């Protein structure tokens, strides 16, 4: 879809749907993921974890385990050396390294069930398991708190006695579980409410949910006698794993090489370390390579999830539907350590709308749950659930079409966001209009069905990236990317290089380099890879083209200004020269005579990532007897800038929608009275399966290609998980005739809302 205002584009590769360069490896079982790597002499590592929600570690006695034949190394928290700590930039957040270290192996306290306490490396899985049982940990059990609102109450067990709420003046007299209070806003909210034509209020909650990548965390670490070490692991950033592991073990970065494996899903959850420092500490103790792989239960207990949230929202609007003010308090679970994405929740909550008066408070609250990790648009889906539900209430109260109401309030280019950025290159209104024009939105509902609509926003980021383009001697090219390929980015990197070089896509391959083979890059996260690393790829390819033109000019003894590069061929435009065009193949074969190998590497700090907007429509039915909700039709529309590989962009929309439907309907961390997780398995933590979903239609809105990217790309991966929570809930609310305010909308809660509980 195009609005016709853009210059006509005549791309040969960009916008096509070629087979991804790593495709065959991934359909034949050849692709090597985190747990697939094997070294001679490799040991099996296992981690001993806390059985308690909150306890002081009185002692750890590993003497019996050490004597077990086959046990080669045992480590505990004292084997880590994070020194002064400090923060490491981890994409969408800064990671406090003292907390990351205390999460990797506990210090003097355990803060949640599953918190790592000790680790062993042994000659077989059986010996490792036996050794774990022989490690005796004596605990002094402490009172625990799980719920975010309870954790804020006076008298709640305090997790960290040095946690004094930041962002509050004067500094509180006593420590509490509120790590930080974020405040943002503008205008005169009080006056706007006083003169409001309509006021909407609500309290909303969402449950903690896990990213749910199918590949558990896995790594192999090998310490060298000279102190030089190698880690093979599945992560969203080999440079991030290097930085965090080196900091936690106090190593120089140059002594640690991290080789990225294929990654079996991450969704933000693999932008930190859990196993790598432990595996390397074990390897350092015994001099042998150590493999650590989490079980699924460990993944649920000790990695991820994202915050559950509790939120109060109040909207003021005119009787025509113009939203004039909003107040919101967001209380997000951080898990055991500070660092929920509540600030991002505040920033994104009203980013779709032009609201003059805003007052937002975000509270980052610790409790005895695993430390939260980034999850696809961290912090935004929960906030959007509250905001988009309230806007749905407003549309019903005013009897307005929900899309018309959103168009009336939508941000336009030039508007200021509450966090200070100016809106640019946005196609939110075009996306809303595209949904309105789509057959789904016009289709009549069958009896017993209802339709929900909701919108969502994500910033998308740029940042530091590196890439190289090497011209092979036969005139093909290799792209060296610095980012793990989590969902097809090799394809988009190769396509942008092919487009720039003028080569067919089949002549360009893409590889992912280790930390020693390419310049630094931020992680695969923040929807940044196609934008930022893609920009580095294109700039490297442009340098190669400039070099090829120079070589052609040198060959022809003409001015470089007279050399044209098109479709992989140099042509001489100087009429006085009677020369044949020079193909990439010929130029590459003669490179030794024109200056040597042809290659370029570019490292940059990409600016100008444009935000993305999504609008989802969900039709569903409810089984009146069981309360089970079935989504029968779903359409996801998104402002994508320009889709480099449209099939993988559609895939992002479809996958994000499916995760969001799971978040809305099924998924939650269920704790018992002892503060222990009752559903740490895929059987009991139920993610959507194929029979739970319909086809997911997509609308790629390409009305506003991003002018800051050579091919117009915007990030696309995170936006699609923001709208579904409210899209689903708005439809359920319409069907049951009552505003649903607590996710997940399990059959039990739906039956209760229908008066059948």
């Amino acid at each position: 879809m195009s609005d016709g205002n853009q210059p006509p584009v005549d791309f040969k590769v960009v916008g096509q749907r070629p087979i991804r360069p790593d495709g065959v490896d991934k359909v034949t079982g050849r692709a090597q993921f985190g747990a697939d790597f094997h070294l001679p002499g490799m040991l099996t590592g296992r981690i001993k974890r806390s059985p308690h929600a909150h306890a002081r570690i009185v002692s750890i006695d590993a003497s019996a385990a050490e004597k077990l034949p086959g046990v080669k190394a045992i480590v505990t928290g004292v084997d880590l050396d994070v020194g002064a700590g400090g923060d490491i930039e981890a994409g969408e957040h800064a990671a406090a390294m003292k907390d990351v270290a205390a999460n990797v192996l506990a210090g003097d306290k355990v803060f949640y069930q599953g918190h790592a306490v000790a680790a062993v490396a042994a000659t077989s899985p059986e010996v490792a398991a036996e050794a774990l049982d022989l490690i005796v940990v004596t605990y002094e059990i402490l009172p625990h708190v799980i719920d975010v609102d309870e954790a804020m109450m006076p008298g709640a067990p305090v997790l960290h006695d040095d946690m004094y709420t930041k962002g509050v003046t004067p500094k509180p007299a006593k420590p509490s579980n509120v790590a930080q209070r974020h405040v943002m806003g503008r205008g005169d909210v009080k006056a706007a409410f006083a003169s409001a034509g309509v006021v909407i209020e609500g309290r909303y909650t969402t449950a903690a949910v896990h990213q749910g990548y199918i590949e558990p965390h896995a790594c192999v670490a090998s310490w060298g006698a000279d102190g030089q070490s190698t880690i093979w692991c599945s992560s969203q950033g080999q440079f991030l794993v290097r930085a965090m592991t080196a900091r936690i073990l106090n190593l120089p970065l140059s002594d640690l090489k991290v080789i990225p494996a294929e990654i079996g899903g991450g969704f933000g959850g693999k932008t930190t370390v859990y196993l790598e420092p432990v595996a390397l500490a074990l390897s350092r103790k015994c001099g042998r390579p150590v493999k650590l792989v989490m079980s699924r239960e460990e993944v649920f207990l000790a990695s991820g999830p994202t915050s559950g949230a509790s939120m109060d929202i109040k909207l003021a609007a005119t009787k025509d539907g113009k939203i004039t003010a909003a107040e919101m308090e967001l209380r997000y679970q951080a898990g055991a350590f500070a660092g929920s994405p509540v600030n991002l929740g505040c920033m994104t909550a009203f980013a779709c709308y032009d609201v003059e008066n805003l007052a937002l408070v975000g509270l980052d609250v610790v409790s005895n749950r695993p430390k939260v990790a980034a999850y696809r648009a961290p912090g935004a889906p929960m906030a959007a659930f509250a905001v988009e539900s309230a806007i749905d209430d407003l549309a019903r109260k005013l009897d307005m079409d929900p899309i018309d109401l959103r168009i009336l309030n939508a941000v336009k280019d030039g508007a200021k966001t509450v966090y200070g950025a100016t809106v640019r290159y946005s196609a939110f209104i075009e996306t809303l209009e595209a949904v309105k024009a789509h057959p789904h939105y016009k289709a009549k509902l069958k009896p017993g069905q209802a339709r929900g609509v909701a919108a969502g926003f994500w910033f998308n980021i740029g940042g530091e990236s590196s890439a190289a383009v090497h011209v092979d001697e036969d005139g093909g090219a290799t792209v060296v990317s610095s980012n793990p390929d989590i969902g097809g980015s090799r394809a988009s990197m190769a396509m942008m290089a092919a487009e720039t070089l003028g080569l067919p896509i089949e002549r360009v391959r893409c590889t992912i380099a280790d930390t020693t083979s390419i310049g630094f890059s931020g992680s695969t996260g923040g929807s940044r890879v196609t934008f930022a690393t893609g920009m580095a790829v294109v700039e490297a390819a442009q340098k190669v083209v400039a070099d090829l033109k120079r070589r052609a000019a040198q060959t022809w003894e003409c001015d470089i200004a007279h050399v044209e590069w098109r479709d992989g061929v140099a042509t001489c435009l100087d009429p006085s020269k009677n020369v044949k065009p020079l193909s990439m193949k010929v130029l590459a074969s003669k490179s030794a005579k024109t200056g040597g190998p042809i290659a370029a590497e570019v490292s940059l700090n990409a600016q100008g990532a444009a935000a993305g907007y999504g609008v989802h429509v969900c039709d569903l039915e409810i089984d009146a007897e069981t309360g089970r909700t079935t989504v029968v039709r779903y359409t996801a529309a998104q402002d994508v800038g320009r889709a480099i590989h449209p099939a993988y962009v559609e895939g992002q929309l479809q996958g994000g929608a499916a995760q969001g439907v799971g978040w809305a309907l099924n998924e939650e961390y269920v704790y018992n009275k002892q503060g222990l997780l009752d559903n740490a398995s895929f059987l009991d933590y139920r993610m959507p399966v194929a029979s739970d979903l319909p086809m997911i239609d997509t609308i790629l809105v390409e009305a506003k290609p991003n002018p800051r990217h050579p091919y117009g790309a915007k990030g696309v991966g995170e936006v699609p998980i923001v709208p579904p929570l409210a899209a689903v809930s708005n439809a359920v609310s319409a069907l049951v005739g009552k505003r649903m305010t607590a996710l997940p909308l399990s059959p039990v809660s739906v039956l209760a809302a229908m008066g059948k509980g």
Partner: protein
Amino acid sequence: MSRTVVNAIVNGEPVAFLGGGGQSLLDALRDELRLTGTKEGCGTGDCGACSVIVDGRLVCACLMLAPEAEGKRIETIEGLADNGHLHPLQHQFLEQAALQCGFCTPGLLMASKALLDRNPDPTETEVRYWLAGNICRCTGYDKVVRAVMDAAADLRQEEKPR
């Protein structure tokens, strides 16, 4: 742990490996035979990443003990392509971009093969229910289901007498 020699046919070739104790077929495939294309996502039979076909029946390799493979014919992802020629399912998964991270893909492909082996013309609903034991967190299943339906059509076309 006492271990015994297990003889089986894996992807058409006779193999022998040491299996025993609580070792699963999945661990034997991955650790003894180094066939790491079969993945472990849960170890409890809930995700389907370890789907293999044993004597024509779709099983989760994590739920079968290694010694139970004695005398059995086992098909894994490594045997799906025929001498380097992709199976129509593999071809369609690539054509339709039916994978993102690719971790669940081997299991989905083996489960889909087991479906098409017994039902060459499944409806969308049949595909969705058959694949309900294979969790994919990336794709939302849309492109997966389309790829399986189209591969089924390709296979029917191949088998038509000319």
